[in-house]
């Protein structure tokens, strides 16, 4: 039973560039959420996708966008990277149910120089 997988594991980008992070949900899950975790802080909710639509969004600028594919996998895109975007980006999958626990991937460590 495959868990949540994310790629790449590490990434170094330059200010102003664009980045795409990828996530495959746990087998059987249909809902994907993305979180940003800065050093020493708890994860911050970016957005959630279900049925290829953005269902919920946190307090992140439009530079952060996403997509969900018919096979439930998802991408997170960040445009015009800022130094402050350096963080661990976590993908979580769940079932479309109010009582479904979140299962997290190992994250992508993004460094913006």
């Amino acid at each position: 039973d495959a868990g949540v997988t994310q790629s790449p594991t590490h990434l170094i980008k330059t200010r102003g560039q664009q980045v795409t992070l990828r996530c495959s949900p746990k087998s059987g899950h249909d809902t994907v959420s993305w979180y940003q975790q800065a050093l020493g802080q708890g994860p911050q909710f970016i957005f959630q996708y279900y049925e290829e639509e953005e269902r919920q969004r946190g307090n992140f600028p439009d530079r952060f966008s996403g997509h969900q594919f018919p096979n439930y996998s998802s991408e997170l895109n960040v445009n015009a990277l800022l130094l402050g975007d350096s963080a661990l980006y976590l993908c979580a999958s769940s079932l479309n149910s109010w009582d479904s626990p979140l299962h997290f991937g190992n994250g992508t460590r993004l460094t913006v120089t």
Partner: protein
Amino acid sequence: GIQVEQSPPDLILQEGANSTLRCNFSDSVNNLQWFHQNPWGQLINLFYIPSGTKQNGRLSATTVATERYSLLYISSSQTTDSGVYFCAVERVTNAGKSTFGDGTTLTVKP
């Protein structure tokens, strides 16, 4: 938005000791989860516990939804319990958006 406060922020124990971690939240929730983040950054779901008590081995958790707090108990701690423990809640009116606390950093010394 909802506020989630965890205490203590840091905890240092000797192997074998017991501990209690607390999570307070400021609004009604329909979803509360406890996570352990190991030193490599991996977040593991420990409990889904919007109310009541659950136990899993040396770990147990209790949520008193009416008083807006949850407790995580770790008994006979081991060095592998070290890491950061997070509480995450979801408001009834904001399903799908989990809000995390800033965590409790636990260090278990041999």
